[in-house]
């Protein structure tokens, strides 16, 4: 089963990278951006058929390694196979 994990900085964490990208876009004339967040996307294929188990495994991966909960939030999206 394919999984997408999106990791993004918490709202209260000022992200210097996001500020730099926003400023650069503004320099290009895109000056109507109110908020810009820059995160990470991790995609993986897990050899597991149960959606519930995939959700559980992905959550464990986030808690144990992929995410630092002090500065980051995450969202797990499971793609159903066609």
């Amino acid at each position, binding site marked *: 089963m394919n999984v997408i994990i999106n990791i993004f900085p918490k709202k*209260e*964490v*000022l*992200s*210097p990278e996001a500020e*730099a990208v926003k400023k650069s876009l503004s320099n290009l004339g895109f000056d109507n951006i109110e908020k810009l967040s820059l995160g990470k996307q991790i995609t993986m294929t897990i050899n597991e058929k149960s959606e519930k188990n995939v959700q559980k495994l992905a959550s464990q991966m986030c808690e144990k*390694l*992929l995410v*630092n909960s002090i*500065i980051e939030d995450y969202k797990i999206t499971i793609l159903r196979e066609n």
Partner: protein
Amino acid sequence: MRTGILVFPGSNCDRDVLVALQISSKKKPLRIWHKETEIPNLDLIVIPGGFSFGDYLRCGSIAAQSPIINALKDHSSRGGAILGICNGFQILIETKLLPGALITNLNLKFICKEVSLITQKTIKNPFTSGLKPGLKIKLPIAHNDGNYFANSELLNKLEGNGQIAFKYHQSENPNGSKNNIAGVLSENGRVLGMMPHPERSITTFHDSKDGKMFFDLLLDQLLG
């Protein structure tokens, strides 16, 4: 006095820390590879700077999963002293032996320069108890991700408990750290993480010898 240095793939300050500890303790420290699962009884473990595992994902996050970390946590639960310098600080943050987070420098630059640090009034600890609070010392920094972050609740707790060991001089916060924080102590005062490099400030060919003073006082305190 027995000291040890953890070495990860990508550690690059282990040799400098070894020299600094050897000069101050007159004994050769033990080098401990990250794949080891046991640490002998030591008075101090230092986690040196570098770019452990290429700093992929987040600085220190992969090193924090190394086999040696369980032994490090056992050492900590026995009340053993641990010092993390730069990447070592980031690893201690990722192992949750120290609170907060370290994010990318506010100006998005790798900063390598000497900074002024002010020692803080802290809980009892072996690392700074020999230094008068308010003392200004000079040590070099060399990092890309040293911007200390904690939410206001945690910052108040750290300030209230006396868990902040060093602050950058207020006029020269180099990286955007909250409350100018450069070094943080654990709740019991036995673990210190700091971004500046005391091991790069020990001999006359370094600009300052404040790092030697730091290690001398630390080892004195540990000998008690």
